[in-house]
C-alpha cells in the first residue's frame, strides 16, 4: 500500500509520520504538499499534527480549504483511508469528514503528557489488531483537544461504534481524572459512519520505537496495514 503524508504550512509532525511509516515500518510513503491537488497514488492519506495556518480562526479551519483537501475528500468518498492525527483530526472535523469538533482544553492549558487509551471498537481497519479493552500508552500534546459532538449525535456515535479510543486510567477505567482535556465521554478517537476516516488526538507516530516513547503506535499503524 502507498501512504501519503500531507504537509500544511505549520505542520510539525509530518516528518515523524514519514519516519514511522517509511523508516521504521518499511512502507512506501509519498510526502504531499498542501498546494498540490494530486495524491500521487497514495491509497491511505495521513494529515499530521501541528499548527496549520497558525491555528488562526479555529484549529484546522483554514487548512481544510487547501487545494489538496479536495482530493482527500474525494478519496474518503471513494472509500479510501484517511487518518487525522491531532491537528489533522481538527482539520477532518472542520472539513465535516468526521463528526463533532475539537475545542479548548477544559484546563485552558496546553497539555504535553503520556496517556492511557482503551480500545472501544476493535472491528475497524484502524484497530483490527487489538481487542476490546486493550490499553495503549501514547503521547498527547495539544491545547484544543476537547472533543465535542452535538448532544443529539453523541449517543448515535457511541451506538454505532464510532468511538474507537477513550482516555482511561492506567487500570483501564474511564475516570474524571483520566480525562486530560475534558472531552465528552472521554473520547480520544472517532471514525466516520463508513469507518474509512479516522481521527485521534494522541500521536501514534511518536510511539514507534522502544527507546523513544514505546511502540504502541505501531499497533494502530499495523492495524491499518492489515485492515486495508
Amino acid at each position, binding site marked *: 500500500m502507498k501512504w501519503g503524508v500531507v504537509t500544511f504550512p505549520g505542520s510539525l509532525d509530518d516528518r515523524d509520520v514519514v519516519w514511522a511509516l517509511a523508516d521504521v515500518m518499511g512502507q512506501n510513503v509519498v510526502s504531499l504538499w498542501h498546494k498540490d491537488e494530486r495524491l500521487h497514488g497514495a491509497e491511505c492519506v495521513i494529515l499530521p499534527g501541528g499548527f496549520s495556518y497558525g491555528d488562526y480562526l479555529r484549529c484546522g479551519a483554514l487548512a481544510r480549504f487547501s487545494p489538496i483537501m479536495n482530493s482527500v475528500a474525494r478519496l474518503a468518498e471513494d472509500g479510501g483511508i484517511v487518518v487525522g492525527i491531532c491537528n489533522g483530526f481538527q482539520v477532518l472535523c*472542520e472539513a465535516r469528514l468526521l463528526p463533532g*469538533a475539537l*475545542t479548548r482544553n477544559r*484546563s485552558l492549558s496546553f497539555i504535553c503528557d503520556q496517556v492511557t487509551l482503551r480500545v472501544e471498537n476493535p472491528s475497524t481497519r484502524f484497530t483490527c489488531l487489538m481487542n476490546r479493552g486493550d490499553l495503549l500508552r501514547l503521547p498527547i500534546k495539544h491545547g484544543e483537544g476537547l472533543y465535542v459532538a452535538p448532544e443529539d449525535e453523541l449517543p448515535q456515535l457511541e451506538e454505532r461504534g464510532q468511538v474507537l479510543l477513550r482516555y482511561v486510567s492506567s487500570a483501564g477505567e474511564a475516570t474524571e481524572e483520566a480525562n486530560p482535556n475534558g472531552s465528552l465521554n472521554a473520547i480520544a478517537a472517532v471514525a466516520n459512519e463508513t469507518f474509512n476516516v479516522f481521527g485521534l488526538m494522541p500521536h501514534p507516530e511518536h510511539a514507534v520505537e522502544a527507546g523513544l516513547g514505546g511502540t504502541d503506535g505501531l499497533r494502530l499503524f499495523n492495524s491499518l496495514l492489515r485492515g486495508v
Partner: protein
Amino acid sequence: MRVEVFVTPKRGVLDPQGRAVEHSLLSLGFKQARNVRVGKYILLEVDAGSAAEARRIVQHMCERLLANTVIEDYRLEVEGE
C-alpha cells in the same frame, strides 16, 4: 459595506474560557456575573449593493468559514440595516 460578526459558543457546548472568566469575575467581587461566554468578533467590509445583499453574503461566509456551526452560533450587524 461594514458588517460585524459575533461568534459565540452554542448553548450547551462546553465553554471553558467563559467558565474561567466567570470564575475570575466572581472572585473579583462581581457577584452579579452569570452565564459568561467568550466568543469572537470579526469586522469586515463587503462589496454589496444593499444591506440585505451584504447580510446574505456574510451569512454564507459564516456557514462556510467564519463559524463552525457544530459548536458555534453567529449573529450579524450590517451597516444601514
